[in-house]
């Protein structure tokens, strides 16, 4: 297994290089001139040139690319161009609030989706199944933004069950006071598509020969569903969770903007609006590396879920 992991880690380098080239050239061609934004209302070409010099964007393109490569491999992205804050500090302080929301969302959403999906799959074809599928389809057709606006207005303002927005320094206060509404919202939005997807995974397994065999052998239905069907459906479920995991670390910028959560998603939007390249670079590279590592982790976990999988 060690050889497999080392090989996979080694294969990440060309991908990172591709990410670096893509970000670099995209930003340099379409990213706008940050010096114009930083220069203020009135500036002359000389002042613009001074800012460009200080930011290093007047250097030859290849030299700038080299600096970027060095930053990626030393994990030192310097300081934000707009606020002068250390980029590493921005990432460290923002990832906590994002995870406070997104980890519970992922856990609750997965548990509920798997539970409901297996139940719905069990009663497939019935009125209950059809009703739930129709509700899910309708729920999926509504924009996330509409959910946010309605939930915030209804639960935050009209019913007053939660604060409309806010965040504190205390993890427990955040979890108990400020996080529940965004978590509830994200779960409500995410549940419908997950439920439909996982239901299809379970139905695929229910129709397999081994299930029929188990039933023919008189294995109780509960054991068939929970032991055989669930375990085999876990592989595509795990893959799906793996795909959504990097998003957990970046957060939902809409949730963060609407609920004033100082997370990474909101930070990315601010950085893009301010042409703050060091922050954009750092977040993009961090996300790419994280995606690759999570994919590796999921691949390794397959081995434990499905004994037929072997590392080559």
């Amino acid at each position, binding site marked *: 297994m060690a050889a497999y992991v080392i090989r996979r880690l080694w294969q990440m380098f060309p991908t990172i290089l591709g990410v670096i080239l893509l970000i670099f050239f995209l930003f340099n061609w*379409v*990213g*706008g*001139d*940050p010096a*114009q*934004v*930083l*220069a*203020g*209302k*009135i*500036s*002359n*070409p000389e*002042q*613009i040139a*001074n*800012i460009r010099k*200080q930011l290093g964007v007047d250097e030859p393109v290849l030299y700038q690319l080299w600096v970027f490569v060095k930053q990626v491999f030393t994990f030192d992205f310097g300081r934000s161009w*707009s*606020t*002068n*804050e250390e980029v590493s500090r*921005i990432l460290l*302080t923002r990832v906590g609030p994002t995870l406070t929301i997104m980890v519970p969302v992922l856990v609750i959403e997965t548990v509920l989706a798997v539970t409901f999906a297996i139940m719905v799959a069990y009663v497939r074809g019935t009125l209950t199944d059809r009703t739930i599928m129709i509700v899910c389809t309708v729920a999926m057709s509504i924009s996330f933004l509409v959910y946010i*606006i309605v939930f*915030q*207005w209804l639960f*935050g*303002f009209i019913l*007053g069950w939660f*604060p*409309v*927005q*806010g*965040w504190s*320094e205390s993890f427990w206060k955040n979890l108990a006071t400020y996080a529940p509404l965004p978590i509830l919202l994200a779960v409500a939005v995410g549940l419908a598509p997950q439920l439909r997807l996982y239901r299809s995974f379970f139905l695929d397994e229910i129709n397999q020969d081994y299930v029929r065999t188990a039933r023919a052998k008189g294995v109780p239905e509960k054991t068939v569903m929970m032991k055989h069907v669930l375990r085999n459906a876990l592989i595509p479920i795990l893959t799906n969770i793996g795909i959504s995991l990097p998003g957990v670390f970046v957060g939902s910028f809409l949730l963060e*903007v*609407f*609920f*004033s959560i*100082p997370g990474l998603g*909101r*930070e990315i939007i*601010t950085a893009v*609006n301010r*042409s703050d390249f060091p922050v954009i670079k750092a977040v993009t590279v961090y996300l790419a590396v994280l995606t690759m590592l999570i994919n590796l982790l999921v691949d390794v976990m397959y081995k434990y879920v499905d004994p037929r999988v072997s590392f080559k």
Partner: protein
Amino acid sequence: MNLRVAAFVLAAVLAGGSIAAVAQKKVLKMAFRTAETGFDPQRIDDRYSVGVCENLFEGLLTYDYLARPVKLVPLTAEAIPVPEEGGTRYTFRIRPGILFGDDPVFKGAKRELTAMDVEYAIKRFRDPRNRSPYEWLFENKIVGLDELHERAKKDPKGAFDYEAKIPGITVRDRYTVSFKLKEPDFNFLYVLAMPNVVPVAREVIEAYASDTHAHPVGTGPYVLKEWVRRSKIVLEKNPNHRGYELDTRYANSQDEWDRRAMDSLRGKRLPLIDRVEIYPIEDEQPRFLAFLNKEHDILDELPFAFIHQVLPNGKLSAALAKQGVHNFQELQPELTYYPFNMNEKAEGRPNPVGGYGPERVALRRAMVLAYDVDAEIQILRKGQALPAQTPIAPGIVGYDGEFKTAAQAHDPPRAKALLDMFGYADRDGDGWRETPEGKPLMVPFKYDGGSQEKRQLAELWQKSMAEIGIRVESQAVMFADLLKDKKVSNFVTATSAWIADYPDAQNFLQLLYGPNTGQSNEASFKLPEYDKLYEKSVQLPDGPERNALYREMNRLILAYAPWRLGVHRIFNHLQYPWVKGYKKHPILYTNFKYLDIDVAAQQAAMK
């Protein structure tokens, strides 16, 4: 046992006392609609960061809280100096005994404000390493400062020589500083009243050189207690502050806001609020709901999206009125406008709207008449704006409220007649006009594609021009690119706006001064007649003679039409009745030091 009971009783009394003390603390909560950048006053220009700095630092001068039109008053200076040597010298004496807030850099000692702190702060604007967005305020202004700037640029390390003495800034003694200007400038005092132009302690800046934004130490009434960047800003009373009293000399007793402020604050030692909590909330709904939910005490700049709910038929809604909410309507000293590129060429091609010949002037004037500014105000801005008649914003010295012009009206028939008269006709019958030479006429229009408001304005512009047969190609570009394109004249027409830095018409009229092309003169308007009038006006103090020059400049602008004037926006600021002393200042963004909170009323409303 008795001792234990006594101890319990004592603890209960102490706890009760401390709870009472906490309960009585006056806390104001509000939101900013945009995130701040930092609090190094010489390195920022966004109004929200500057607004916080207004409370942390104090300049030599400021504006009276209640006086309208705005009036300069001394703050750390003993008095407003009289211009000397024909308006080229200004000498200030700082009040002795003004203290900076405490900071570990001062090693436990109290640090007094001195004239050297003022000198240091002014020099910081021209230190290239600071890349100050307000560097232009002191460019070509103070004798010897440009040379110091040039020396720093030539230095291999870019080091600015703060020790060097220059004839333009003379520290005469511990409390006296004198400025010598290159040219007469009667607006220099306004510059010194800007919330960025404030003294800072050199040792603090040098100690926190890597992150000066996070360590603002000034002489203001508040100190920065807590800062979670772009999420929460907490200010608390500066224990070293000497305190103020409300100056009512310039108040208008007929004005209900002035009256209420005087009733609430008279005889009290300011500031009264112990703690201010500011939450940057970019989105409109949570900002609005946080106010309605009483999570916030004031709502500055009510989002336009909620105008009809809050102000149905222009009056405060019954639900809010019942709660005692007050609405302060503010006509901001700002202007939106649409510059035409006056150069003969633009974007590498002949520019259809550029030039000073009669046909080009006619085309621009026709486009000015075609633009439906009334629709912009009624539909896009929900009635919260006034059409601009001059490039000078209301509340600004030199603004003439009586001046009305038909040249900026929405009048498509007149626009069509003008185009017909100068040969802009639809010769091929395709519905679009051609140039007098018979060539196709297409006018590109650039706007910030990231802004919904600008997208709507672009649509309106295109629709208005189509009505008179002029084809417009809307080009959405990134904000940074739009700024650059306007600076290097790489546009034909575009969206633009200006908010006053200081309350004088010069701050607006310089936007069309020929030598400012490539900087603030986006239209590249170069009219010798206008430039002469501008140069003459800057040599004069405020008065009828200068106002006459401003009027003449305004006529030239309307005649040559380098801009389509837009609007002056109206902002609505809401407060709950327990917030006392509120009045919005047109130049200063915050007013925390003049506010009071009726804690009992606040707590009762929360129940």
